[in-house]
């Protein structure tokens, strides 16, 4: 029993990390049609900058930890904004080229990180409370899982509100479909697109810092490892659906947890789930038909 609880709660914790990666991805992919291979790079960059802060300030104190989170988010946001402005934006409405350019960027930047920070993992530890455990139904659940879950929940709510309360969601959906017509209505669609990328990058950067605490280290491939799961989550959840991404994140992570524990083939199970979902519901669990 306690094992099941443990697997479940830690699964949700892992799901929270997945969500932080996939929400930005889903936002960018679902709204803008850009399958962003560079998303992992935003995350890694955020994680490294967070690590740099931690290395100077010490993330074992709560203020240091929070500061490293903020710096990570900022780093991810800036990186994403620059990527959008100087690379993606030049290729509007050419989705395949956009994908290609993010593939190239990911390749280059991961190599650059290798050069700057080296291939060795950089270890990190957070406030002592996070390394301790809380006992739930006999299971010792590590506390950092709760932090991840809380941050993910806040991000989910904030993003949903942003899309509901502002015109941006609408502008972007329209802009993806027909960018020039949106500009012809007097809307500066470029700014809107950059904004979405920036938000996605900020969330990824924050996710990077949290993931580095979750894994205990930062390395140049941190983001790329998570990215493949984030892709899967995004497709399972349905393009552009944040709630879908949230549900799929938890589903994938929990499935992976249980399959790894009882069967040893967690990643296999996730792939099977993906194949089943795509074949039975090609647009994902909550996906609407997003305009091409």
């Amino acid at each position, binding site marked *: 029993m306690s094992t099941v609880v*443990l697997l479940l709660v830690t699964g949700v*914790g*892992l799901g929270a990390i997945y969500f932080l990666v996939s929400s930005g991805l889903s936002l960018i992919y679902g709204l803008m049609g850009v399958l962003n291979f560079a998303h992992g790079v935003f995350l890694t960059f955020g994680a490294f900058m967070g690590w740099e802060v931690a290395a100077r300030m010490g993330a074992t104190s709560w203020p240091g930890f929070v500061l490293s989170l903020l710096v990570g988010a900022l780093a991810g946001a800036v990186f994403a904004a620059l990527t959008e402005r100087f690379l993606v934006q030049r290729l509007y409405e050419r989705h395949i080229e956009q994908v290609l350019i993010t593939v190239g960027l990911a390749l280059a930047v991961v190599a650059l990180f290798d050069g700057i920070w080296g291939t060795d*993992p950089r*270890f990190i530890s957070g406030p002592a409370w996070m*390394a301790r455990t809380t006992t739930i139904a006999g299971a010792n659940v590590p506390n950092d899982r709760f932090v991840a879950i809380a941050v993910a929940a806040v991000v989910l709510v904030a993003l949903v509100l942003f899309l509901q309360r502002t015109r941006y969601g609408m502008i972007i959906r329209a802009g993806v479909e027909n960018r020039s017509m949106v500009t012809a209505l007097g809307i500066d669609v470029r700014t809107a697109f950059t904004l979405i990328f920036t938000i996605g990058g900020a969330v990824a950067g924050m996710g990077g810092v949290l993931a580095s605490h*979750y894994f205990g*280290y930062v390395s140049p491939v941190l983001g790329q490892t998570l990215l493949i799961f984030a892709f899967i989550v995004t497709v399972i959840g349905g393009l552009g659906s944040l709630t879908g991404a949230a549900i799929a994140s938890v589903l994938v992570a929990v499935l992976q947890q249980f399959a790894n*524990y009882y069967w040893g083939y967690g990643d296999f199970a996730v792939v099977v789930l993906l194949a089943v979902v795509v074949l039975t519901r090609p647009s994902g669990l909550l996906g609407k038909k997003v305009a091409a």
Partner: protein
Amino acid sequence: APSDSGSSGSGDEPEGGATTEEAAADESGGDPVQVGIIYSETGPLAAYGKQYKEGLEAGLDYATDGTGEVDGRPVELVYRDDAGNPDTAVAAAKDLIGQDFKILGGTVVSGIALAMAEQAAQNEVLYISGPAAADAVTGINEFTFRSGRQSLQDVATAGAMLEDEGGKVVVLAQDNAFGQGNLAAVEAVLGGEGAEVDSVLVPEDATEFTGFARQVIDADPDLIFVAWAGATAGNMWQSLDQQDVFDAAPVVTGLADSATFSAYGPIGERISFLSHYFPEAADNEVNQALVDHVNEAGGTPDLFTPDGFVAGQMIVQAVAEGGDDVNAMIDALEGWEFEGPKGTTSIRESDHALIQPMFTATLVQDGDGWVPELGETVPADQVAPPEASGR
């Protein structure tokens, strides 16, 4: 240009009877001996590659008394990057063999070592594998040697720590070649000594270890042997700690390189480490030479430095005794016993296993960081791997 007399003029005594070969070497006109080193300059194991390379240069320097020459022939190391990829390594090997290289060395990656061994056999050149731990390299063919230790030796060291007979050993390992190799080694060594062996194999891509930590406890072990490589180690140890695995039984694992010492944090004090090498472990002249050489060259001796160092010694031995003849080199190495940085070391004739002492250690806090402290030195014959039957 023919070799200048400067080398022979250096007053120091050349190693092991090389003088007798002087004439033969002079005939070959002092041509440089080219040695191809294929190792991870880049790629996931680049850090290990760097240690290996520093050790190799130090070892060569030491074995040639700083001349870099054997019998007046300069030993020229030609480096190639394998980037952790066997295909790249094979391409490099083919290139070098095509240029008539007779000696290849290097690699920290087991898969590459196996592919290189294959190339060595196909093309009849000498191959001295680097830190790659796979037991399969031992005895794979007559052309392949190794300059590092193998998993069986790690495990045998852990066996030395298992106080008494029987008991239940649980192996917590990644479900990959390294982990499976360790499990097999534990079954062979400790199982052979009468211990009951159980295992928890964790998928290599797993990122969440709390569940597996519970599995270890549920197995009710008397000794827990952890075989883990890679960046997830810190997370795994934390999970073990959080699930109180350390209260369940003594935990043994291999001590990796210095970059990982801080990954354990305070947990490090509760683990019994078996160690291949750390600079303070060995107290002998050769090790002192290794540390001095490497420090001088601006490097830092670490886990795999001696593997490179020994490779350097082996190359010099092979060239000194075998000249350009690969079979003669093999003869020169088989059964060779010498003083290595870890102490007296020998190459077993039957399967080319490198018989060497091993260490046990603990981590202790030193200011902000953690440093290893030597437990005991386990003599070479006690941790010698069972003879590989060859292919």
